[in-house]
């Protein structure tokens, strides 16, 4: 209706265009060159934190009770370097470029004889599958040599099972649990990137694998196989590659080796920024300053994209990743919510949290939850905003709504006047900060407006943000938060079971397809949010908006199917992709490349 619900609803809001200016100014400032991409621990992140602090002060928000500073520090591993790991076999020393410590390795030395344990994979008995690389092997106090990845020639079905137990960290744990002192990993001659070392990718849980572990080059592995009379490494891999469970490992005869891993982990300090509004004075009855509704967004991004998850193309590599959508938009939404809630009636406190270290693995929110600066029992609910600046077609995605039955009710009430095309999903195990709060059993919800082809690239810029709709998202968030802050009781937390269908571990996925998936619980297939420029998907003619229905002969009904399919495709081997575009079913061929 031209004069009906929609326009009437708008008239009861504050002047929409004025507040859209506010969110524009927040995003533009945070995504500017001066902030340098807001990498956790850098000066750019400090500037972003200072900007947020100044905004909180302007709004009359206070530091949390008992604190004088909005900044709440946390420590994190900011890098790992190999400072001279070595490997000696008999009196032969591996060359310096022949090995590299694995990021999660213990620092130290392991000496002993060497056992070749195939792919080093053990599928748990509960899977009723029957695959154990260690069958019949005695590895206690020895050094285990394993191949990276999983058997190359197995059927896709078998690979999809093995892939789940083939991550490096999983292999290290497997070796340690069998009593091995050291682990050597080689990329087999029949695998992609044959003979190359594994990258020293650090993650947050970097330390503590309990075993000395390194990757070695094919050259070093061949040196070990000189002592094996009847086969080469390549022949040994070939025997294993059918995944025949009866092909076992063996001792490498007459060799004693010493593996020494030297790693230096650098520690940095990151800062969360947190403040709060107390309950309104006029609602003294039933009011509780000790209960908090927490509204949050991460403010860090990828800096110049030199670590980990940048998707920058070759022509833009090393440029500042401004992260306008990811997640200047979320910060702008939370600041705009604070602005709207100023002076409003509320029975409980409302806190505003701006997290750092999210891109490195939810570090800031995880540390905040662990620190008990605000006990999780004191949190009525957590409302997160991550990538809310690129709304298309009025679609707002609300995730993690399975964490409490309060969400469907409040979403219904809140959305009627705001009028988004709201899509909900229950799963709280998400690559964003709600995961930290869900683990602490706080009813949580995440706001999201969809991925796009500028995701994790320098081109995620302020001019691509949809400010009018970003402001509507903030309005929705403010209405929702206000309702939460006036509840008499804490909503009941519901534990959502983690999907047993979790995909293969990240470091086992080695095929690069250049697809950027969007995903949804109710769409049958995998919707592409974009494709990486120059990548195999683009070369195959795929584009944003295509709905993949079949990939390498496997029906794709959801993101998990797709992850499985990715696990088992072979680099360099063309695969058929069936997809829908504009209602038409089309077919193309995509040739995956090796992931570096």
């Amino acid at each position, binding site marked *: *209706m*031209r*004069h*009906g*619900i929609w326009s*009437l609803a708008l008239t*009861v809001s504050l002047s929409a265009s004025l507040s859209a200016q506010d969110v524009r100014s927040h995003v533009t400032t945070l995504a500017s060159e001066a902030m340098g991409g807001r990498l956790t621990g850098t000066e750019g992140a400090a500037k972003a934190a200072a900007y947020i602090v100044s905004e909180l002060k302007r709004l009359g928000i206070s530091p949390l009770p008992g604190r004088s500073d909005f900044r709440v520090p946390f420590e994190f591993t900011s890098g790992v370097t190999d400072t001279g790991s070595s490997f000696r076999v008999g009196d032969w020393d591996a060359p310096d470029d022949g090995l590299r410590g694995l990021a999660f390795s213990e620092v130290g030395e392991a000496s002993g004889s060497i056992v070749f344990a195939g792919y080093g994979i053990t599928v748990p008995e509960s899977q009723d599958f029957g695959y154990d690389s260690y069958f019949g092997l005695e590895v206690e106090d020895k050094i285990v040599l394993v191949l990276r990845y999983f058997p190359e020639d197995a059927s896709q079905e078998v690979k999809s099972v093995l892939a789940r137990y083939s991550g490096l960290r999983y292999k290290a744990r497997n070796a340690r649990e069998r009593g091995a002192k050291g682990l050597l990993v080689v990329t087999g001659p029949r695998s992609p990137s044959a003979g190359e070392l594994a990258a020293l990718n650090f993650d947050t849980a970097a330390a503590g694998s309990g075993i000395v572990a390194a990757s070695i080059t094919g050259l070093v592995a061949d040196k070990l196989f000189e002592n094996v009379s009847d086969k080469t490494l390549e022949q040994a891999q070939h025997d294993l590659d059918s995944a025949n469970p009866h092909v076992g490992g063996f001792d490498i005869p007459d060799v004693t080796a010493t593996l020494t891993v030297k790693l230096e982990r650098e520690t940095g300090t990151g800062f969360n920024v947190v403040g709060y509004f107390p309950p309104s004075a006029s609602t003294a009855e039933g009011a509780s300053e000790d209960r908090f509704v927490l509204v949050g967004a991460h403010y860090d991004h990828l800096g110049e994209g030199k670590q980990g*998850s940048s998707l920058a193309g070759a022509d833009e590599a090393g440029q500042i990743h401004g992260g306008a959508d990811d997640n200047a938009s979320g910060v702008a939404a939370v600041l705009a919510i604070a602005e709207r809630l100023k002076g409003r009636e509320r029975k409980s406190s409302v806190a505003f949290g701006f997290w750092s270290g*999210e*891109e490195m*693995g*939810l570090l800031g929110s995880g540390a905040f939850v662990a620190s008990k600066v605000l006990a999780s029992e004191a949190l009525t609910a957590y409302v997160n905003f*991550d*990538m809310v600046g690129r709304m*298309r*077609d*009025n*679609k707002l*995605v609300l*995730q993690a709504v399975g964490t409490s039955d309060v*969400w*469907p*009710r409040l*979403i*219904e*009430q*809140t*959305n*009627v*006047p705001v*009028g*988004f*095309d*709201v*899509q*909900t*999903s229950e799963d709280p195990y*998400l*690559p*964003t900060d709600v995961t930290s709060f869900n683990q602490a059993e706080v009813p949580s919800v995440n706001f*999201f407006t*969809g*991925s796009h082809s500028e*995701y*994790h690239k320098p081109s995620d810029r302020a001019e691509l943000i949809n400010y009018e709709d970003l402001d509507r998202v903030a309005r929705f968030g403010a209405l929702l938060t206000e309702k939460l802050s006036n509840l008499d009781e804490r909503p009941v937390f519901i534990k959502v079971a983690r999907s047993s269908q979790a995909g293969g571990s990240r470091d086992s996925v080695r095929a690069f397809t250049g697809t*950027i*998936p*969007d*995903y*949804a*619980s*109710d*769409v049958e297939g995998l*919707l592409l*949010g974009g494709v990486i420029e120059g990548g195999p998907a683009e070369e195959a003619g795929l584009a944003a908006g295509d*709905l993949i229905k079949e990939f390498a002969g496997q029906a794709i009904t959801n*993101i998990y199917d797709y992850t499985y399919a990715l696990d088992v495709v072979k680099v360099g081997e063309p695969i058929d992709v069936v997809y*829908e575009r*504009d*209602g038409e079913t089309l077919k193309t061929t995509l040739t995956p490349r090796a992931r570096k």
Partner: protein
Amino acid sequence: MRNVLVFLLLAGTASAQTYSESDFLSRTRRLTFEGRRAGEGYFSPDGKQMVFQSEREADNPFYQIYVLDLLNGDTRRISPGHGKTTCAFFQHETGNILFGSTHNDPRSKDLQKKELDFRASGKERRYSWDYDPEMELYVHHPDSGELEQLTHAFGYDAEASYSPDGQWVVFTSMRDAYGRKLSREEEKQLEQDPSFFAEIYIMRYDGSQQTRLTYAPGYDGGPFFNYDGTRIIWRRFTERGDIADVWSMLPSGADQRQVTDFKSMSWAPYAHPSGDYIFFASNKLGFTNFELFIVDTEGMKEPVRVTYTDGFDGLPVPTPDGDRLSWTSNRDGGASTGGQIFIADWNHDKAMEALQASPARGSTENE
């Protein structure tokens, strides 16, 4: 956001037909989220409120009636809270709300408990409506909060709606199965499916002058007045109960005419306020795939398909100004529940164009 597992929904799948959903419907969005299911949403005459039925209270597994304020999103229950209710409708000017309810049945709370226990046992049954003979029609008066009982006949009395001027109520009743001696055939029929006895009735808004309008064997139900109160539209099932079509008649019961002829289950008719066409739902494209259609008021032309999304789309109701359409669907997360209410902008001009371009009824083969 860290890493790439990201989320977005896609609009309904398009098809190779001449039209697609976006020709008629835009800014489609889900209106209700709470509870297992919601449906039968009808607008107040000023378009500012919607009354609907929903299963959303922990202690009652059956529908209750709620009024949704479309300006601020507040929802309140206006039915008693216990028993089963269904099919509410606003009266012109007074804001009174008419609905069917079993709350005066002394067993109603026991029935709730029985159903809850059944669900707790983990068993599932196909959703079905049981045509509870204790169902009577009531009017909720918003100012006093009082409930006025309009019907007192044993047998399902429900599916009621007011005439546009609020003076008349047209409704469905199965009282004919109870007030007289049934033949053996009829007794068997009643046991199998009481809806066979459902007929259309009319009465004054105060419950007086209750008059039967239809006599055809088989379920006659879901009646509404058209935009100016000159005709009643409803759905009529065949005697066997396998096929339903939209019919129209004068408020006297005379001049009964069949409007649709899909040879499938076509039901839930509701007139567009322009008076030019009628919305309805049909499963002609698949037994469980109900889609919305429009047909010209006289049924001279082939109906035009409006929705193109698999699953259930039914119970279409336009806003009083005719610019928006609300309906019940299990699309987009409505699927995890038994259906929810959706709303979209309605393209009336496109609808008129499509109806005009449609061939005469019966001139094309049924698909």
